[in-house]
């Protein structure tokens, strides 16, 4: 076995893989959140659909997206491997173990939280990623006044295999910009009309919060970055950014659509 392979099959190496993929997934969440904030724009989804097109067709982002899919799979597989090893390390369980007196609940339940998140990711990608890439979705045609960009007329265009996913034409004589794009916004809008689907999203985001309150700072400990100077900052980001801000902002999207759209 090469030195490299030996390192990554050791208990510490496996944890390093978990930490690095975990931090990468955390940075993705920030990008995903910032992009999805366009859902709150009151433009019938024009900005969101343009963003969806950009994210799926801009080459550097496509490269990163494959790295992202790989990270999710590796993170889950290594978690399984590590958990199997941990179970083997204690074949006879304690009759009584007072874990709540010496450790945080989140830290002891990363596997359960992670499983909820993995199920969520599969459902979430099936409903949006898969549909956007493969389903015969109708298009939205936006007629935007050149004089006033807030004046948008929207109409539906049926699916056409020959049509581009996204096109923009400026008609100077009519004084409008015409944007036609595959309507992912509509898919989002329809999905979040069902109460239990919205509930699933809110529960998943609660799981995300608890997963990351422990996970983010834990990754730094595993890598060996625990200098006293910036440990408080890591803890702050762990709790306030990844434990509260990010999950709440994500959960607000389905709730907003359910209540107002």
């Amino acid at each position, binding site marked *: 076995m090469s*030195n*490299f392979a*030996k*390192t990554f099959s*050791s*208990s*510490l*190496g*496996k*944890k*390093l893989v978990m930490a690095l993929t975990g931090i990468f997934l955390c940075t993705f969440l920030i990008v995903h959140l910032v992009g999805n904030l366009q859902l709150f724009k009151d433009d019938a989804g024009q900005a969101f659909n343009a963003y969806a097109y950009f994210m799926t067709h801009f080459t550097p982002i496509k490269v990163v997206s494959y790295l992202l899919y790989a990270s999710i799979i590796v993170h889950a597989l290594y978690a399984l491997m*590590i958990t199997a*090893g*941990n179970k*083997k*390390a*204690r*074949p*006879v*369980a*304690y*009759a*009584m*173990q*007072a*874990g709540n*007196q*010496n*450790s*945080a609940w989140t*830290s*002891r339940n*990363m596997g359960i939280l992670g499983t909820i998140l993995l199920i969520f990711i599969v459902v979430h990608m099936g409903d949006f990623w898969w549909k956007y890439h493969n389903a015969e979705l109708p298009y939205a045609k936006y007629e935007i006044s050149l004089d006033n960009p807030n004046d948008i007329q929207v109409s539906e265009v049926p699916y056409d295999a020959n049509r581009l996913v996204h096109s923009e034409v400026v008609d100077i004589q009519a004084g409008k910009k015409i944007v036609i794009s595959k309507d992912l916004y509509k898919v989002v809008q329809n999905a979040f009309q069902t109460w239990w689907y919205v509930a699933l999203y809110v529960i998943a985001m609660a799981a995300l919060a608890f997963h990351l309150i*422990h996970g983010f700072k*834990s990754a730094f*400990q*595993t*890598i*060996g*970055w*625990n200098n006293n100077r910036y440990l408080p900052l890591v803890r702050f980001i762990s709790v306030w950014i990844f434990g509260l801000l990010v999950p709440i902002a994500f959960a607000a999207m389905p709730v907003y659509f359910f209540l107002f759209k």
Partner: protein
Amino acid sequence: MSGNMNLTLKVWRQKNAESQGKFVTYKAEQVSPDMSFLEMLDVVNEGLIKKGEDPIHFDHDCREGICGACSLHINGRPHGPKHGITTCQLHMRSFNDNEIVVIEPWRASAFPVIRDLAVDRTSFDRIQAAGGFISVNTGGVPDANSIPIPKVVADEAFNSATCIGCGACVAACKNASAMLFVSAKVSQMALLPQGQPERYRRVQAMVAQMDAEGFGSCTNTGACEAECPKEISITNIARMNRDYFNATLIKNEE
């Protein structure tokens, strides 16, 4: 004497590593609150011996919290309910009259049960032997203070060196991970000048032995540091990880 307590003990009894163990209930009567937990077990054992029964086997030695021989998982926690002490330093006043006390051995595949509550912790010795030492030539005593070491560094190394190798970290960890023990043994030398020549070889050898013994992985729950009788910090684990990744992924040596 007034103020004495009566307790119900549920003790794990197991003949040897191969046999199936089970809980057996014993009464501990007229227990003085000033007894240590081990003295209480001594009294129970005297009663068992008088009745011609097999006494409860448990590890103990110095009975003053410095040797690391005593163990016991008491009511779900290594060394019982108090913080920063070993079982021999645990007094019966920490329990209530008529309380049910569950006593189990350390549970880990790397700590097989020898008998009842005594477990085989030689896996720790093998990890130590794999690299937890410094190689020096014997000879005259070197001059004191010939190698300057800053006070904070000396203190930190000393804190790591206070590990008594009792195995409470493994017992407390939900994954039966030995990382707090190994990291303390790595750190006590990695921090000092005398430990530098073998620093990176040492961490690799000790981690390899730790994995070979079948201990679990660290999930940073912090249970080990909360239960450690010597209050050793998980900062040591981060230092060990740093040294290990440095050694295996960055340094250009074996």
